[in-house]
């Protein structure tokens, strides 16, 4: 009966069914969060507190990484472009790659590892120490009280963080190419302005970062809420949050880019 072939088959079947079951549970959880998010807006102080933990505390890592990513882009772009005598186009290169792709994607990856993992660990520990059960005993809806404000805080913070990342990156590129390497400042800005479109590039970047914010926060909250109430379970859930949301951000980025920039 228990020969290796049937055991392997049974294992694969179990993994697939388990995955689909979890996906269904995650979808139901997501709908619940949306349905009960009225509390997040009625008691705005709760949401503001979570914006502080998710957004404000991520500021340092976002600003510093943005600055360095922009500086590297400027340095590498300048190195290649000056061979073709068009070093002024480095502004276009830095701005387009940041606003369209790197800003939303890298900010979302950093957000997942900085704020997403913290959310998972916090909710997982609340579950392990039976605080969530205690809330239910007091007839307080834990999804409305705990999950909702964190979700909306993530959705609000993500586009702002991505915009700050792109802005800092462009300043970093400016610092390296104009101040250090001597590209003309007027050409740097005017070439950038000539090829970056407000709707096509900037707005699509903002839409991307909102989608990433929803995905990362929803995954982090679900993993926390679904974590086995043990020390091992919480640590596993935290790891899964970072891995799953990073993969989700990269996959979603491909899909969104294919939709948005098809004609360009």
């Amino acid at each position, binding site marked *: 009966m228990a020969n290796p072939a049937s055991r392997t088959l049974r294992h694969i079947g179990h993994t697939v069914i388990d995955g689909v079951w979890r996906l269904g549970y995650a979808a139901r959880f997501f709908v619940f969060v949306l349905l009960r998010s009225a509390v997040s807006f009625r008691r705005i102080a709760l949401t503001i507190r979570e914006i502080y933990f998710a957004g404000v505390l991520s500021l340092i890592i976002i600003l510093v990484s943005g600055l360095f990513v922009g500086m590297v882009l400027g340095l590498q772009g300048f190195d290649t472009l000056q061979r073709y005598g068009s070093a002024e186009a480095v502004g276009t290169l830095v701005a387009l790659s940041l606003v369209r792709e790197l800003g939303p994607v890298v900010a979302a990856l950093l957000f997942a590892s900085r704020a997403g993992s913290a959310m998972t660990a916090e909710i997982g520990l609340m579950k392990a120490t039976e605080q969530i059960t205690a809330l239910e005993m007091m007839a307080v809806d834990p999804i409305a009280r705990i999950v909702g404000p964190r979700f909306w805080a993530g959705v609000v913070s993500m*586009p*702002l963080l991505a915009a*700050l990342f792109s802005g800092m990156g*462009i300043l970093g590129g400016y610092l390296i190419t104009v101040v250090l390497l001597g590209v003309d400042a007027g050409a740097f800005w005017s070439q950038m302005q000539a090829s970056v479109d407000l709707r096509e590039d900037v707005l699509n970047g903002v839409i991307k970062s909102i989608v990433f914010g929803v995905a990362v926060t929803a995954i982090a909250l679900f993993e926390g809420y679904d974590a086995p109430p043990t020390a091992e379970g919480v640590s596993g859930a935290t790891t899964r949050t970072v891995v799953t949301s990073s993969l989700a951000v990269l996959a979603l980025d491909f899909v969104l880019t294919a939709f948005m920039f098809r004609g360009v």
Partner: protein
Amino acid sequence: MLDLWVGIFVAAGLAALLFLALQVSNASTFNTGDAYRVTAEFDNIGGLKVRAPVKSAGVLVGRVDAIEFDNQKFVARVTLRIDKRYEFPTDTAASILTSGLLGEQYIGLDGGGDTELLKDGGRMTLTQSAVVLEKLIGQFLYSRAAEGAAK
């Protein structure tokens, strides 16, 4: 204290968005609101793309709005969106030019002497197609061969 930090964060985020909108993108240099459309027909548009700049005397006056293929006359019909601030006479010549040797292609407008001005939906009749490198080389080789035969 918490509210103060969140306020600073939101204000900084909005400022970054404003920076991207005004300083980085072209919203400030070209207002897409007030513009009129004119069409021009070209035998060959080369590598011209939608959103390519339309320049007159080197100044950005508009952008390419749409490019279609006319199946009756077998020409390319290009729609240009030109800023309302700039008006051109009806005999304005439109030519497809390249900025630099490897740069992007754009449409250059040379104003004519007509007293009537182009209106929304108007048509430019004087056009000059893009220079296609293969045709240029072909012409050069042909003329060299003709010279050789004459000798």
